[in-house]
């Protein structure tokens, strides 16, 4: 299954929430969706689930428009967590699974399996509002998983989780991806996204600013090069194409290096000024890239 979002546009009055947004999530891929608050992540996910209607553009699964029957096969975790507070965990999950099209007995089996997996099996008979916040989150994840979804769309699944729950969540997401399910989730925890995701999309002001693997994105941004050449003048690197001087103090120069620039050429130039004690290249982190994209 490949989930494709194609040229989505959504306006709220004069505010453009999504502006010609497109990306796709391939089978078995963990796709990280990052952006500032209000960038349009939640709107995108709501449109994917049909909870909101787009002004234009469409959502496709394997090339076919997503209708209600297809949508029922998607696992969804809304940003605004929501369950019936006074309903028992077991009944609630079984009910939701049946709404996704499972028979009663299949639903009950799936509830048992997933609550055991997520460590909330002994809470089946408790009402949701009697659970701790962390356990409520686990129930919410179980609700997204009980019907064995063919696609997973999770809005901020890691927010509010304790470190143990983060590990469980990561494990489950990777396992789902490994079984061939396209998984897309949004998060503000960029280190986590960098660690888990095969590909990442950065959204700002309703537009997709960058999409690619973390490595592609990192190599796409300007790298930082630290050169310690005590005898070099402050402007030693200025003549080099694609290279800019960020700062120069006590013979230590920080350069920004555009993608594709030959770093050996820079080293040769540095050596021409005298000895070089340090020469280290720093790829930008996802957080650096994010700041760069968002401020652009």
């Amino acid at each position, binding site marked *: 299954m490949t989930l494709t979002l194609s040229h989505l546009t959504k306006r709220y009055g004069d505010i453009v929430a999504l502006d010609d947004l497109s990306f796709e999530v391939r089978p078995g891929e963990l796709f990280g969706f990052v952006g500032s608050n209000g960038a349009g992540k939640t709107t995108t996910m*709501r449109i994917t*689930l*049909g*909870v*909101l209607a787009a002004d234009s553009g469409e959502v496709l699964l394997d090339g076919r428009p997503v209708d*209600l*029957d297809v*949508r*029922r*096969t*998607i696992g*969804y975790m*809304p940003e*605004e*967590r*929501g*369950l*019936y*507070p*006074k*309903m028992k965990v077991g009944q609630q999950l079984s*009910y*939701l699974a*049946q*709404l*996704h*099209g*499972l028979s009663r007995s*299949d639903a009950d089996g*799936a509830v048992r399996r997933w609550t055991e997996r997520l460590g909330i099996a002994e809470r089946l008979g408790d009402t949701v509002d009697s659970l701790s916040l962390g356990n409520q989150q686990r129930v919410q994840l179980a*609700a997204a998983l009980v*019907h*064995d*979804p*063919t696609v997973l769309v999770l809005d901020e699944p890691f927010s509010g989780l304790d470190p143990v729950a983060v590990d469980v969540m990561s494990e489950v997401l990777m396992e789902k991806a490994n079984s061939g399910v396209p998984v897309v989730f949004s998060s503000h925890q960029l280190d986590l996204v960098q660690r888990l995701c095969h590909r990442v999309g950065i959204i700002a002001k309703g537009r997709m600013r960058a999409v690619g693997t973390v490595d592609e994105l990192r190599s796409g941004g300007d790298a930082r090069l630290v050169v310690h050449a005590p005898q070099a003048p402050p402007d030693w690197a200025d003549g080099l194409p694609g290279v800019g001087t960020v700062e120069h103090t006590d013979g230590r120069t920080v350069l920004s290096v555009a993608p594709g620039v030959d770093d050996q050429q820079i080293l040769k130039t540095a050596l021409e000024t005298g000895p070089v004690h340090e020469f280290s290249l720093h790829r930008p982190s996802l957080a650096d890239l994010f700041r760069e994209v968002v401020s652009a």
Partner: protein
Amino acid sequence: MSAPLTTTRAIGLVARREFVTQVRKKSFVVSNAIVLVAIVVGIVAMSIFGGSDDDRPTVGVVAAPQLSAALGAIGDATGMPLEISEVPDGDTGRAQVSAGELDVVLIPREPAGVTAVTESNIDAGLKTVLDAAVAQDAQSAALTERGVDPAEIADATARSTVVVEAIDPPDPEQGQRVVLSIVAVVLLYMQILMFGMYVAMGVVEEKSSRVVELLLSTLRPLQLLWGKIIGIGAVGLLQLAAYGVVGVGAALATDTLTITGTALGVFASTLGWFVLGFAFFAVLYAAAGSMVSRQEDVNSTSGPLMMIILAMFFAAFSSVDDPDATWSTVLSWIPPFSAILMPLRIAAGVASPFQIVGTIVLMIVVTALLAVVAAKIYQRSILRIGRTVTWKEALGR
């Protein structure tokens, strides 16, 4: 594992959840048990104390068996049956009157007539009976003295009676019909108001807990809306049926009600009109619920609905006395007033089959139209979290 979900199954799933959640509530079970017990106890108590002979005037007669007989006969004939007892002498009689055991004691006076001793004064009707009895007694005594056979006199008086021929005879079932109408009106009012409110609160609960977003990713808004209305309505119908079965059953068993056919007809029409009246208001209550984000705000949008239901209730109550009045007949055609006025008219026995069918069809048509509008409001408002949506905004384009 997911499979396509038919609309029937989707609505059925939602309805079943609503039904089960509602009937499993401890408060629901307890309050209904109390109400049912109260109905039985109330009806049994009414049959014991209500229909007894306690209100018959008690008359004591001192040493005049003929007068006693005349009193009994005239009392029965004039529709004022008396409790007559023999009293040995005047003093005993006076004592019994002051003790409140007797209303009146009749003591023969010399040479003729009687003295009626009473606490303070005698009811005018009773006085007439007493006068007539004493006069008849004196007449019989005089005639007997002149040699007329007492049996002949008795025969003559018995035959000379007034036969009433009424052009518009009163309905002997009138009293029971009025009681049935009032019960039907009160029950319908309470059930529609209460279960309409449950629908609104259920919608707000889903909205305020945000679970609605998860639900709407698997259900169409209309499936959710109708599932909820059907589920909650089924609970309301069940509760009403339970009240009816227990109430009518107890009343028939204790002979408090004697018009079995009418009672069952009223029962059935109350159930039927509950379904129609509830459906009418439930779609509106669902719309009202979808417009707010917090339980506390429900009253701000459901207030107008409550006003309408109250107006219906008062209209129904005003027409209990005279259900066939022109204004009440006209109003009973207009939805939603028909929902409460028609069962009343059926109970009163003034609804023609044509009117019954006509008002039902009209009510269904109006409810269907309203459901379309309400569903639009619901769809438009259900995901708007935050400020309360006004009716004007919800209905506007």
